[in-house]
Each structure stands twice: as structure tokens, then as C-alpha cells.
């Protein structure tokens, strides 16, 4: 079993091992939905919610059902299906009980079903042998780190839209990739702090 302290995992997954900036995962919404600060916050919150929830559900399914039955081979399929079902269920629950939330971040839920970081977190938790508590902290940290990155990106892009004269060919995805690169450099400053195996 992995022995990293959950707290270290939390900090590492937000800063030194930020999933968007060091693993370059979850790029589609990172590029597309980062035009506007408010929507970026909505997307970030939805990701935190879904990633944490699906990791927490997938952990027992993997360790308590698939491993004892020696059925790890189908884990990818199961993870994806569980993610899709959870998002569906979440959508129904939110619509029923929190209609106001629905309009602000419920609409991002269907987009998240196919986001790679949701699956990536489930796969990392298996690969690195995290226990349940570690998984909770790791999944929350990873998604919070991603949300953090997209919110910073949106803030920078909003500011750029106001003041910068970006060359025509770089507008849109081009400048986003450059900003992401610079942000990744900045996050490299945290690198020596903690090393995850």
C-alpha cells in the first residue's frame, strides 16, 4: 500500500502535480470554457464535485468487487460506465432539488461525462495503490487543482481580451496554449516541495 500522507497528497495534487499543467490532461474544456470567469468557476465546481464523487464510488467497486473476483481486466469499462451513470443521477438530483444550481453549473455535467481527468483520477488511484482516505484527498485535490488552473486561465484571458492586442493567428486556442505553458513554468516553482512516486 502507498504510504503518502493524505494531506501531502492533497497539496501535491493541487500544486506540484497539477493535472492540467503537469500532466496536460482535461485540455478540451480548459481551452474552450476558459473565455469567461463565471463559466470557468461553474465548470471548475462541477469538476470538483464529479471527480471526487466518482473516485469515491469507483474505489470500493474496484477493491471490493473487481479485485476479489480477479476481474480487473474490465475495470476501464466499469469506471466509464459508473462515471456516466453518476453524472446522470447527479443531473436528475440537482434538477429536482436545486433548480437554481442547475442553471449555473448543471449544464456542464453532460460535458464532464467524457472529460479525461475523471477517468484519469480513477486510474491513478488504482495505479498508485491509494487507500480510501488517500483517494478522497487525492481526487479532491486533483480536481481542485484543475479548477484552480482553469479559473486562473479565465481571469488571464478576460484581462487579455480587454488590454492585449493579440496577433490574429494566435487568438483562441493558440494564445491559450502559450498561457498554459507559462502557467506550467510558474507551477514548476513548486516542484521541489513534494515528490509523488
Amino acid at each position, binding site marked *: 500500500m502507498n504510504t503518502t500522507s493524505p494531506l501531502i497528497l492533497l497539496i501535491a495534487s493541487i500544486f506540484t502535480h497539477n493535472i492540467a499543467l503537469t500532466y496536460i490532461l482535461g485540455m478540451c474544456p480548459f481551452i474552450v470554457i476558459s473565455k469567461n470567469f463565471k463559466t470557468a468557476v461553474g465548470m471548475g465546481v462541477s469538476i470538483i464535485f464529479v471527480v471526487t464523487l466518482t473516485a469515491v464510488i469507483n474505489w470500493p467497486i474496484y477493491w471490493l468487487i473487481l479485485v476479489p473476483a*480477479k476481474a480487473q481486466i474490465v475495470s476501464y469499462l466499469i469506471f466509464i*460506465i459508473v462515471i456516466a451513470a453518476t453524472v446522470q*443521477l447527479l443531473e*436528475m*438530483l440537482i434538477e*429536482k432539488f436545486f433548480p437554481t444550481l442547475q442553471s449555473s453549473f448543471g*449544464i456542464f455535467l453532460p460535458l464532464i461525462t467524457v472529460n479525461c481527468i475523471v477517468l484519469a483520477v480513477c486510474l491513478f488511484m488504482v495505479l498508485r495503490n491509494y487507500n480510501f482516505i488517500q483517494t478522497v484527498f487525492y481526487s479532491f485535490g486533483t480536481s481542485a487543482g484543475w479548477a484552480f488552473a482553469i479559473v486562473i486561465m479565465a481571469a488571464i484571458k478576460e484581462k487579455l481580451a480587454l488590454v492585449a492586442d493579440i496577433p490574429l493567428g494566435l487568438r483562441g486556442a493558440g494564445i491559450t496554449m502559450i498561457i498554459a505553458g507559462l502557467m506550467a513554468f510558474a507551477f514548476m516553482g513548486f516542484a521541489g516541495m513534494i515528490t509523488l512516486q
Partner: protein
Amino acid sequence: MIPIFIMNGILVVIAILLVVAEKFLVTYGECKITINKEKILTVSGGENLLSYFGQNKIFIPSACGGKATCGYCKVEVLSGGGHILPTEEVFIPRKDRLKGVRLACQVKVKNDIDVLISSDLLEAQEFKVTVSQIKDLTSDIKLVYLRLDEPSSLKFKPGQYVQFKIPETDELRAYSIASPPSSENAIELVVRLVPGGICSTYIHEVLDINDTITITGPFGDFYLREDSGRNIVCIGGGCGMAPIRSILLHLKEKGIPRKTMYFFGARSKKDLFFTEELFALEREYPNFKYIPALSEPKPHDNWDGETGLITQVVERLVHDGPNTEAYLCGPPPMIDASIKVLTKKGVHEIHIYYDKF
């Protein structure tokens, strides 16, 4: 074997869970959709406005099939629609947002809802039609003749369009009617093969004589304003020919004495079509002048007409701007450039009507 059983077991559990959850969580009950304060549809909530309109034979134009990518299905929601979604914001300018304009495909019906639809759209109907003839106009443009079966006549204003439904799909594409309104029982569409376009490929490759298809219409606010006496300038490119041909034929049939010029831009002679017909029209109808212009005439074209970009030709030949109204149909860059030239010539912006595609 065991992994398969485990997987199926988990799938069954998840499926049951979702079905049960849906039964208990998704209950909207009966909702009333009030249209223009008079017509009431009673539906059992949960779907979007656009699909309820479709089920009730109200045909709101939509080209993307409810994915919020075309922005055609605008309606005014007076109450009960909830807050505007970020997916819609791109298509709806700020001043329309205040009026409550929404995309019908993005408004989920959860309670009673009050909407305004322009009365033109309520007149749109669904028609069963039969393909009676298909003709090649150029190497990539075909003329499709459709005979109306049920209902058997279509009343439209010259310049309006219909939506063509690709059989066995939910895909709709808009095509302007190229025939004049006087032929109510049969219409003609001009279809250019768009590389990778699913509907134009269908029409060019699959569609055959005697096929029956479904169209809806008429739609569009690009049509001839008959209540004015101003001179008319039409500018078209490619299959932007279609609505303008309808307008011209209508002008001639009604014997309307307004001075009319039609500028048609093409690359070389092989991209011109209906040329004979339009020059014949010019002879029969003295107010009318057809001015095709080639931007890149080939040596073997033996072209002695106008050359250059269509906007340059318009700039040279249009005078009396303030007493002119313009109908433009073609690709967006052509239209934008033409609007600039026309306003420079003194044509009032409110008298410039256009259809971009």
C-alpha cells in the same frame, strides 16, 4: 468468464438504479405551453420547447437539430423559461436577451410557459413532396424539381426558403425556393454540393426521381418588399441565385415596373447558370438588366461581359443609391463587402435585405 458476469452484474444494478431514480426524480406533470397568448399546448414536461413544437406541427426553423449550434430556433419566452443558458448567449445579443429571446432547443419545459412566436412561423407547414426532375446546372450545382403531394399547394413570398429533411434522419437543411410563387404546386431548389455537407451530398449522390421526401416551410424574412416603388438591386453568388431568381420571375409575372438590376458574381464561365433564361427575361422585361461578372475569366471563355469582383462592378454601375433597395444572397464575405459598397453609394441600410449562408 467471471469478469463478464461481474461486469454485466454491475451494469444491471446501475441500469435498475437509473430507471428507479428517473421514476422518482423526474416528474414534471402536465405543463401548458401558451403560444402568442391564444394557442395552448398541454404536454407532459421534461423535453425542450423545440421538440414539443415539432410534435405539435409548429415548425420553427432549426438546422442543427437542437444542439445550440445554428441559432435559428429563436422564440420569445415571456415567462416560465428560467434563466438564459451560457450555450445560448453566443446567439442572442444583449438587447434581445432583455426581451426574453431564447433558443427553443435549450428551453426545457418544467412548468407552465408563455412564448411568442412570429406569426410567419406559425404559417409554416409540413409538406410531402415527390422529386419530379433533377438537372445539372454546373459541375457542382443541381436544380431539383419537387411536386407537392400533401398538402398540394405552398404559398410563399419570393425569396423565402424551405427546410429539406434528409430521410431517416432528423437532419434539416435550408434551401431557398428558386421558382416564383405563382407555381404553387411544384417548387424548385438549387443545391450546391458542399464538400462534406451531409444534405447536399445526399441530394447530389442519393436522391433520385420519384423519391418522396418531407419539407417544411416557408421560412425567412428575406423576401421581396412589394409595397415600395424603389429601384431594385439584386446581388447573388453561387446558389444565392435561387431566391433572387424567384424574386425576378415574380416581378416579371406581376409586371411590376420597378427598375431592376441583377449582379451575379462567378469565377469563370462554367460557374454561370440560368444565363439564357435571365437574358431572355431581360428581353421580355425591359426594366430588368442582368449583369454577370467573372472574377477569373478563362481565355477560352471568350468573355466580353463585366470582369472583376462583383463589388467593383456594383460600384461602377449603381447610381441613385437613396432610391434603391437591395437584395443580397450569397457567401458572407461577399455580402459584407456588398453592404459596404451599397451604403457608400447611399443605399439606406434598412433597405438592404440579405441572406447569408
